[in-house]
């Protein structure tokens, strides 16, 4: 007769693992809960940060990443530089540039809600001369009213940036340079050009006529063919001010938005670390449960050895039990983490995004924890001599 021990079938092993847990359901649930909380925390952190990123990506896609802005920098001596008047038309001639338009700061003018406001209380609102193409180029839209057109751009008519409108209290008219100006419209926030939010916009011609605007552009907004943005960026400074390219500042506003991601990433790493600590504590809970389980079940171990279980089979049984316990916790944790992400994303009107690697990684981590936590108690169980186990 052959004396090769029969192998335990996977289904039998699964059942064996389950018996141990079902014998003490409360303990199993509590120690699985530790794992569940750790995994849920990690999934939620990854999920919330991915959802926020997905929202940012969506925002960036809507705004476009092909906008470059040109502004005067400083001269060699630290004074404020200016852009030449013809810089906008020069920039428009760059091949891949689709649109270029300017705003010009009206230096000595300030806007007030009424003529009763003491001068100087400007609320930090700038006055900008704007060309008609500005709204389309920066991707802005109106919250109410209309944008400047060829006619209103010549008369004392303003359009308020979103923050400026809030500070002024959305009046029908504003007081500027000894004259009442009609408010034609109010803008929504412009993410790619936040400086516009703080401004009152008047027509280029009206600024010259009523406010003594010198006609120097202070910021040029450009849109280029997507594939050529970097090439355009390289020549913008020299094109805008061929005499002193070093006095020109070129920036890409979408980069600033994208930088928010990097900030998020650091924060996410920190929270992920906290989640990992929770998971570790959960794993220790499982190990503790398994150690106690082995101590309590010496008689069962002895019986199984007398029924013909090999040491390996005893070991596998306890590892299976530990794996099952952590998998249970992991599954609940992944579910909880997903739900938390979903709820948070809904409150932020973000899309709910939990990357597949996080789900797979979460389950993978629990399998790893289960194996590690169960191995030592299982080895102890297997080392127990049958006679010693039966004596208890």
């Amino acid at each position, binding site marked *: 007769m052959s*004396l090769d021990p029969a192998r335990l079938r996977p289904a039998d092993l699964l059942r064996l693992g389950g018996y141990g847990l079902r014998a003490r359901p409360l303990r199993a649930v509590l120690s699985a809960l530790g794992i569940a909380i750790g995994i849920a925390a990690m999934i939620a952190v990854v999920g919330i940060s991915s959802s926020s990123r997905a929202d940012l990506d969506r925002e960036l896609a809507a705004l476009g990443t092909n906008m470059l802005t040109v502004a005067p920098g400083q001269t060699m001596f630290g004074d404020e530089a200016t852009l030449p008047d013809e810089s906008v038309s020069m920039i428009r001639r760059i091949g891949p540039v689709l649109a270029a338009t300017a705003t010009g700061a009206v230096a000595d003018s300030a806007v007030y809600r009424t003529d009763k406001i003491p001068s100087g209380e400007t609320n930090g609102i700038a006055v900008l001369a704007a060309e008609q193409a500005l709204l389309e180029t920066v991707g802005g839209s109106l919250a109410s009213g209309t944008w400047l057109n060829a006619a209103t751009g010549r008369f004392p008519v303003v359009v308020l940036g979103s923050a400026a409108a809030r500070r002024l209290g959305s009046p029908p008219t504003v007081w500027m340079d000894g004259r009442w100006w009609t408010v034609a419209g109010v803008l929504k926030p412009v993410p790619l050009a936040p400086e516009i939010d703080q401004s009152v916009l008047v027509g280029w011609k009206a600024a010259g006529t009523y406010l003594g605007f010198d006609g120097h552009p202070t910021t040029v907004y450009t849109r280029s063919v997507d594939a050529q943005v970097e090439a355009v960026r390289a020549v913008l400074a020299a094109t805008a001010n061929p005499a002193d390219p070093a006095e020109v500042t070129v920036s890409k506003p979408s980069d600033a938005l994208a930088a928010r991601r990097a900030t998020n990433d650091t924060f996410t790493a920190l929270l992920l670390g906290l989640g990992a600590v929770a998971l570790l504590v959960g794993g220790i809970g499982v190990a503790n449960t398994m150690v106690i389980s082995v101590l309590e079940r010496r008689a069962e171990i002895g019986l199984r050895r007398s029924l013909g279980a090999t040491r390996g089979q005893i070991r596998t049984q306890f590892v299976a039990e530990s794996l099952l316990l952590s998998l249970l916790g992991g599954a609940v944790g992944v579910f909880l983490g997903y739900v938390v992400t979903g709820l948070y994303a809904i409150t932020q009107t973000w899309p709910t995004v939990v990357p597949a690697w996080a789900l797979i990684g979460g389950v993978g981590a629990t399998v790893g924890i289960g194996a590690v936590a169960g191995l030592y108690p299982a080895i102890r169980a297997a080392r127990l001599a049958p006679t010693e186990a039966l004596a208890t």
Partner: protein
Amino acid sequence: MTAVIELAGVSKSYPGGVTAVRSVDLAVEYGELVAIVGPSGSGKSTMLHLIGTLDRPTHGTVRIDGHDVATLSDRQLSALRARRIGFVFQQFHLAPGRDAVANVADGLLYAGVHKKEREWRAEAALVRVGLGDRLTHRPHELSGGERQRVAIARAVAGDPAVLLADEPTGNLDSVSGAGVVELLRELNAAGTTIMVITHDHEIADGLPRQVPMRDGRVV
């Protein structure tokens, strides 16, 4: 070869100098019903462990069903227990919360029997020990005598070459105990080799052969 259990000059000493069994020679043939009888400390529990291959002798040879225990690895001994040896313990050792069929079926788990076959063989074994109407009862719903019958069913479900019963009536009242002994007789009559380890001379005297032990020796 007709001896299922063959002990030749077997001694067992434990670290610390305690010798539980001293040069015992014993042969039990297939189909026998034997009682090892002796007071506590006489070495009969050690005899059970040696014959049950749960422990190895310090000296001498133990042959079970023709296999020399000394030549077998731990894995092979496990397989020998799984297929050729059935155990019945004083404390029954039934899994609480699992019904009689599940408890008995576990006895076949390590012999590589499929779940379906384990279950029907468990049912057959339970019918054999007179618990045909208690298949789905859990241990706490059974009397002590019935629990020991479940344990006996678990031991015989795999048709072992030898059934080792360690104080099978130790935890039972005399009526239940007598019932269990009667069951062992019936199983023996049907062909199972049985060795009962007991301190109770009354039970031993009712069996066909007694091996009295005292201070680690067969007397």
